[in-house]
């Protein structure tokens, strides 16, 4: 296992970790590592490091390990953790900011999550609503998992859960403005 040279990693990464945290509205010093977030998280079975550890690594300035971790990409943003956190640490927002910083650095530890996220936002941007059937198709093509969930499609169509008709909202421009404002134009 690699040793972390705290003095060096702090000097190198202190600014980037703190910038990411403050963009998420999180004070890294707040977290006292009780682990309640990890214990309540529904997705830990798929994660490589615990949600708690993501913050710990950031506290120690171990930024490279954070960028390589799958955990931020698997976070479902269900906000169970922050609801229960004794220190009110907004972990899902932090995960989101880590994903953005990670992507900006050309890093995508879980490619599918990134593809899905982009397609989803793009869909909303275009029509103001998510059109599941087209979303599934595009995702399967873009991710390379061509047949994923395909056999569910007829069943869902018969039930009227998905369909070929494209749904939208009246004022698409408003939705686009909202998204632009939030993301600084990343989605378009």
């Amino acid at each position, binding site marked *: 296992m690699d*040793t972390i*040279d*705290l*003095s060096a990693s702090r000097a190198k990464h202190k600014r980037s970790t703190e910038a990411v945290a403050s963009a998420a509205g999180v*004070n890294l*010093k707040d977290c006292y*590592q009780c682990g309640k977030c990890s214990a309540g998280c529904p997705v830990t079975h798929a994660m490589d490091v615990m949600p708690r550890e993501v913050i*710990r690594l950031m506290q*120690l300035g*171990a930024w490279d390990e954070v960028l390589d971790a799958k955990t931020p990409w698997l976070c479902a943003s269900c906000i169970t953790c922050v609801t229960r956190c004794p220190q009110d640490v907004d972990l899902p927002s932090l995960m989101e900011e880590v994903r953005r910083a990670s992507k900006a650095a050309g890093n995508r530890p879980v490619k599918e999550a990134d593809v899905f996220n982009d397609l989803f936002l793009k869909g909303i941007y275009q029509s103001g609503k998510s059109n599941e059937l087209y979303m599934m198709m595009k995702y399967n093509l873009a991710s390379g998992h061509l047949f994923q969930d395909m056999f569910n499609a007829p069943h869902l169509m018969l039930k009227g859960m998905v369909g070929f008709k494209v749904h939208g909202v009246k004022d698409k421009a408003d939705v686009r403005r909202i998204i632009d404002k939030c993301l600084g134009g990343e989605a378009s």
Partner: protein
Amino acid sequence: MSRIGVFLCHCGTNIAATVDMTRLAEATKELPGVVYVEENKYMCSEPGQQAVKQSIIDRGIDRIVIASCSPRMHELTFRKMLTDTSVNPYMLEIANIREQCSWVHKDKEAGTKKAIDLVRMAVAKVDRNAPLFTSEIPITKRALVIGGGIAGIQAALDIADAGFPVTLVEKEPSIGGKMVMLDKTFPTMDCSACICAPKMNDVGAHPNIEIMSLSEVEEVTGYVGNFTVTIRQKAKYIDYDLCTGCGLCEQKCPSKVTSEYERGLAKRKAVYKPFAQAVPSKPIIDAKNCRKFTEDRCGVCEKLCTVNAIRFDDEDKLVTLEYGAVIIATGYELIDWTSLYGEYGAGAYPDVIDGLTFERIINASGPTEGHIVRPSDGKEPKTVVMIKCVGSRDPHKGKAYCSRACCMYGAKHAHQFLDKIADGECYVFYMDVRAMGKGYDEFYMNTLQDGATYIRGRVAKIYPEGDKYICIGEDTISSKIVTVSADLVVLDTAMEPQESADAIGRLFGVSRDLDGWLTEAHPKLRPVETNTAGVYLAGTAQGPKDIPDCVAQASAAAAKVIGMFCLKALESNPMISVVDEINCRGCGDCVDVCPYKAIAMETVERRENSVWVTRDIAVINSGLCQGCGACTASCKSSALDLLGFTNEQILQEVDALCL
């Protein structure tokens, strides 16, 4: 023929669930001398006590047995109950059928049998009880406080304020102890000297307090209310009656020595006051380093002193005084980590220091005037590592116990460092953060916000690299090995008892625990008393503590002393040893085994078989005897007997059980 009443307590279901009370009552009725047996759900309650009193009157009972809980719990209650009856309070025996029977057994059959045995023994014993009477012991209303740290200061002030004279004995040249060395105190960040020095001045100026600095207790005799204590006042070589404390001698003294008060970071003179606010505010001469004593030269202080207060021919003085009560507040010392922790450099690295030394460095009146610098090169450290539990919670190398104050002063050091050095990095290696005082956890949380990085784990090794010290540890939270290149390392070392605690403990008959701390009479219910009546504990002499706890304990001990001094006289314990002078053969074994020094040998002339003989016999000091019974067990000629537990009574019990 004695008329014994036996009262069986159910203690709710505490006893009745495991002991068949009806069978116990029936068996008890058969015992010789028993004229009356009664059961009650709660014998200690008011109705229970009334029932006992009533049956004493109705049945003409002259001695009683109460079968209930431990005598430690309610023997006194029942003795008090008997004071307004015709029965002497010592004509009472308690059969412990709760702690020694129902609570430790599950089998009702066996429990009942054992309870019957216990009651039978108590009945047999009470049959041989004799009435005992207390007597009055006069009290010398002057207190002795040993140790002039914050605990001793507080205790002395409290007693003196109540109007009783106090002698405060301090082995150093000034009172103040460890607290006066500190910079600030957690969690309020009061300046330590600013809150300690006024108290020191109060002590110095108090009409009821006499300070004996540079003094040690040498000999103790007597007992509660009447201790005779001999104190050695070491030679100061300065006449304190004449000295004005002008400081000219100190200014002109040519000999420079390492200052103990500044933890070796600065020099002092051979004639010196340890620090500016010292009380008494007068210097002493350190004869080991004074050129007058070592080389028979110099003497400049003597020449310059305007009031001729220098006395090179001064000698140690022995003072003997009477005291009614004693408070031991001898304090702590930091463990010598250099002999224990080779992995931290064993003292070879000048910038690996202990917490008290760091206190001097950050202290505005310290050698660096509060500028944080490294002792080695005087440079400002940018990265500081604090290591907690050095010597504490380390039974292999140091002590098994937690030193209690380090978590908080460690947090305080981190806070102060980050406050003074804005671009500094502070890493605290810890095992747990124990911040359980009022406002303590909030303080620790603020330290985290200040930017201190807490890393859970001990540092395994420190080694120098260039002018840095590399500290290697594991962050056990993330399971990563981490290293820090530190400029300065502060070790939060364990507290251990003062060396003098051993001698003080022996002098006053106060036992010490495995770690050497003086032990209290009961860890929960008698926390400031000792097993020697009239001797109390305050501060870290009893165990590691922070300042608020020391002060609280000191005031508690003072309250005990004041309470005693407010009595007209003390009531003696009548359950003490007595000597049968005819059978005593003068061997002196009892003198050796007595833990309270209550027995002395005396040569007497007496007429035996119409002949005058001179021989040694043991004499018991009734004030000192605590009734432990060690002497009676050691006496080969059965000349010693413990009233209330006479040899006859105990044999009766044994017979009742075994025959």
